[in-house]
């Protein structure tokens, strides 16, 4: 299974695409949860069931949106690439490794694009869920989730920095600044 995935990724050179989708939609998921948490905090909502329901609903919507949009765009892109290759090779390549990769890769890319915001969202709201299940937390649930969101976005920044060869620490700080600016905008809008 993993060998096949590695082969298909090698043939299509799709490592970069997977990485991009993982980071872009993961960042989307992280910032969406951060926005929801700040919004709930400012509105004074204390009903954890409502907060969890809204966050999980948003996470599922992000997952479905990520899966379907990536599948549609990648399937079209891979079909186009296969047609161009078939024209160059002057033969049908449906049964070659390229043909199989063009059918299989959009599913893999869509899965990554759908699961990354979903998993990141679940990680961020885990303190709220823990508080709902009566686990003791050192901080109130919304504040805990806010800190987890900042930590997750910082880690995503570090990952981007590692991939690009950029200084990992500054890449993490840059992601953190984006998260804090987002929170500041939401707080600012609350006072309008």
């Amino acid at each position, binding site marked *: 299974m993993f060998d096949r995935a590695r082969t298909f990724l*090698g043939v*299509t*050179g799709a490592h970069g695409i997977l990485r991009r989708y993982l980071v872009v939609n993961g960042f989307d998921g992280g910032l969406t949860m951060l926005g929801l948490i700040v919004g709930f905090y400012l509105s004074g909502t204390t009903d954890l069931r409502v907060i969890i329901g809204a966050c999980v609903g948003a996470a599922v919507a992000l997952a479905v949106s990520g899966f379907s949009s990536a599948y549609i765009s990648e399937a079209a892109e891979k079909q186009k690439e296969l047609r*161009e*290759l078939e024209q*160059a*090779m002057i*033969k049908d390549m449906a049964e*070659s*490794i390229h043909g199989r990769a063009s059918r299989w890769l959009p599913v893999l890319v869509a899965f990554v694009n759908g699961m990354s915001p979903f998993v990141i969202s679940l990680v961020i709201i885990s303190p709220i869920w823990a508080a709902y299940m009566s686990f003791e937390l050192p901080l109130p649930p919304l504040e805990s989730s806010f800190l987890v969101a900042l930590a997750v976005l910082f880690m995503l920044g570090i990952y981007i920095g590692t991939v690009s060869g950029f200084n990992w620490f500054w890449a993490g700080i840059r992601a953190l600044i984006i998260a804090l600016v987002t929170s500041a905008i939401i707080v600012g809008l609350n006072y309008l």
Partner: protein
Amino acid sequence: MIRIKKIVFDVLKPHRPTGLEFASAVAQKCPGSVVNLNVEAVDQNTESVLLRIEGEGLDFDTISNTILELGGSIHSVDEVEVVHLPDSSATG
């Protein structure tokens, strides 16, 4: 019994898999073989290569199917070397 000891294919292949990956995949299907790949010409999406496989008892169908599966197209078989081994039953 006729056995193929060496065979040279003129193959048109996409840039991916790379020459190393392509030759390795063929070698993996022919245990004990030596595979040599020479790039003859490079185009925008494709490259023409000479694929030389040497070994004891090569299987033509296995090799050609592997080439096709890797997206290659066999243009011609440029060289072959076969050996006639006497049947063991006849010698014994």
